[in-house]
């Protein structure tokens, strides 16, 4: 269990050859993630590891349930693809001893990976705080890797939002510890009662984490930060880093206080998500630059994730046996949306990076002819876009269809309207890019840089992964049930 994060972090810190170390660590981490997922899949029980042999009231537990396993595998796959993609952009130039930016990039990549794994596995609230900080400190420098004034400002703004978020989260942790004397999630879930201190703590933590996840009212930092970073870094930030704090919100609401999850709070979160979908998509439609468009689309896609809260928590009527089934469907759909967005968005950001590299700019108006010059890249972008719109057979289609069915079946039809509208808007902004990209160029297109087919291949492979996710929805959903107690909690209410 621990090697995954421990090994990766140790390797990031050691040595003068960060790239080689990273390239060794990538397959090792990938195989460990698959091994853990396979183990959970076969045994159907969550794994628990007590650090140093101390049991929870005193020690720290790391837990891997089905959700952690899925997230670990997704993270490992996406990070491996990013690593392969970034080899050319961030290799140390020949003849020089040491270059700063590549070394820093590889170390940060490993640091973010370690932080993410710690977030997926952390079993108590304070460990999760530390993991979250590790993630932030890895992600912020990635934004400002090229050192231009705009990206420095974007990184600073991101850092200030993130710091405010984490200190609010820490305040919530303090209140939880003061009230119950433990921070272990499993122990807390048995102790919490509906009392003011819990509401204050959870409200503070949720508000802080929303700032880090860039949900609608607190999303301002995201577009400049994600659009300004180098392509490999924006893929990492957009696909995975924002998901870390989202999973923390899920852990708080569904695992720490499952018995107190109420519809008012869940509906509020989903309403913010709905606003995020509408605003993010409309703003994405208005962007003139490709990377900003993709960054705004991230805001919209994050909005979908928050539909998880009303749809997967206790529905309107709990008496009939069918509702339990629908919360399960919503839960699977939400997590599938998380995974398919991670894969599709990473592919789209890297495709945009290649396009920008080849053309020397990323203005949407100037894309004509690129479809002929870089067919694989544009195809990959289109496949990723299919997943965002929710066209079958992509992962995004199955995810959105599951959320939609759950919304209708649970009598929360108003969310289904937003899901459908979001799909239409997504189609709008994806076609806004594809139409000029596939049009014939006015004159002969001169490429600024040669883009190797290997990097195009990585992007395409990732986009095909996003597509194939739609074909295997049921197997992960079984894995997801491991260590989950949503249905029972819903019935208990």
């Amino acid at each position, binding site marked *: 269990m621990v090697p995954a994060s421990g090994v990766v972090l140790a390797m990031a810190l050691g040595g003068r050859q960060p790239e080689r170390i990273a390239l060794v660590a990538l397959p090792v981490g990938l195989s460990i993630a698959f091994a853990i997922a396979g183990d959970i899949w076969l045994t159907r029980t969550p794994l628990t590891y007590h650090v140093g042999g101390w049991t929870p009231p005193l020690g720290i537990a790391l837990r891997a349930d089905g959700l952690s396993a899925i997230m670990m595998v997704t993270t490992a796959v996406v990070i491996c693809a990013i690593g392969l993609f970034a080899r050319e952009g961030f290799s140390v130039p020949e003849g020089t001893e040491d270059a700063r930016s590549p070394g820093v990039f590889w170390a940060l990549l490993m640091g973010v990976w370690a932080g993410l794994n710690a977030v997926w596995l952390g079993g108590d609230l*304070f460990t999760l705080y*530390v993991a979250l*900080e590790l993630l*932030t*400190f890895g992600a*912020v*420098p990635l934004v*400002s890797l090229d*050192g*231009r*004034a705009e990206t*420095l*400002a974007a*990184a*600073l*703004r991101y*850092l*200030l939002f993130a*710091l*405010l978020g*984490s*200190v609010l989260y*820490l*305040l919530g*942790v*303090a*209140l939880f*510890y*003061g009230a119950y*004397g433990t921070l272990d999630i499993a122990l807390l879930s048995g102790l919490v009662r509906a009392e003011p201190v819990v509401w204050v703590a959870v409200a503070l933590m949720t508000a802080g984490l929303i700032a880090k996840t860039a949900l609608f009212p607190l999303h301002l930092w995201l577009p*400049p930060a994600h659009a300004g970073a180098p392509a490999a870094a924006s893929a990492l930030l957009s696909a995975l880093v924002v998901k870390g704090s989202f999973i923390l919100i899920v852990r708080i609401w569904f695992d720490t206080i499952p018995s107190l999850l109420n519809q008012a709070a869940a509906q509020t979160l989903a309403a913010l998500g709905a606003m995020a979908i509408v605003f993010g998509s409309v703003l994405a439609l208005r962007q003139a630059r490709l990377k900003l468009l993709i960054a705004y689309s991230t805001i919209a896609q994050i909005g979908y994730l928050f539909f998880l809260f009303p749809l997967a928590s206790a529905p309107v009527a709990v008496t009939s046996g069918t509702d339990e089934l629908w919360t399960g469907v919503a839960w699977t759909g939400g997590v599938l949306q998380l995974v398919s967005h991670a894969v599709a968005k990473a592919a789209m950001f890297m495709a945009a990076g290649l396009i920008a590299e080849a053309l020397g700019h990323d203005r949407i108006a100037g894309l004509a002819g690129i479809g002929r010059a870089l067919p694989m890249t544009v195809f990959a972008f289109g496949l990723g876009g299919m997943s965002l719109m929710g066209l079958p057979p992509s992962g995004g289609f199955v995810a959105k269809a599951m959320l939609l069915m759950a919304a209708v079946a649970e009598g929360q039809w108003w969310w289904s309207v937003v899901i459908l509208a979001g799909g239409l808007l997504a189609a709008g902004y994806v076609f806004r890019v594809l139409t000029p990209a596939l049009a014939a160029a006015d004159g002969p297109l001169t490429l600024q840089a040669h883009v190797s087919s290997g990097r195009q291949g990585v992007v395409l492979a990732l986009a095909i992964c996003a597509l194939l996710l739609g074909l295997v929805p049921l197997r992960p959903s079984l894995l997801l049930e491991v260590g989950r107690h949503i249905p029972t909690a819903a019935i208990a209410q």
Partner: protein
Amino acid sequence: MSAATLYGLCGAALVGLGLFGAIVHPQPLRKILAFNLLGGGVFLLFGVIARRGAAAGMGGDPVPQAMVITGIVVAFSATALAVALLLRLYQVSGSASLSSDPDGGGR
């Protein structure tokens, strides 16, 4: 009023001041300072919790104290990172302001 209550109220006041400062002030340096104030309030709260949860014969519960140390390390490195970014931003662009609209630089 016991000492723990007094310190708890102080912590709450610091949190409030810090939050206000972080939201209201547009300048990044002030925001960083406000964040430290806010952090200080949270750490004081941890101290109060340690005091209240003390077992018989001990000065305080050690677990929150361990968490405060971790929190201080994190807050310190965060501040260092933020100040370094701010300095670099000043060196590169000549202004230490974050407002994105070109006309309202010194709001």
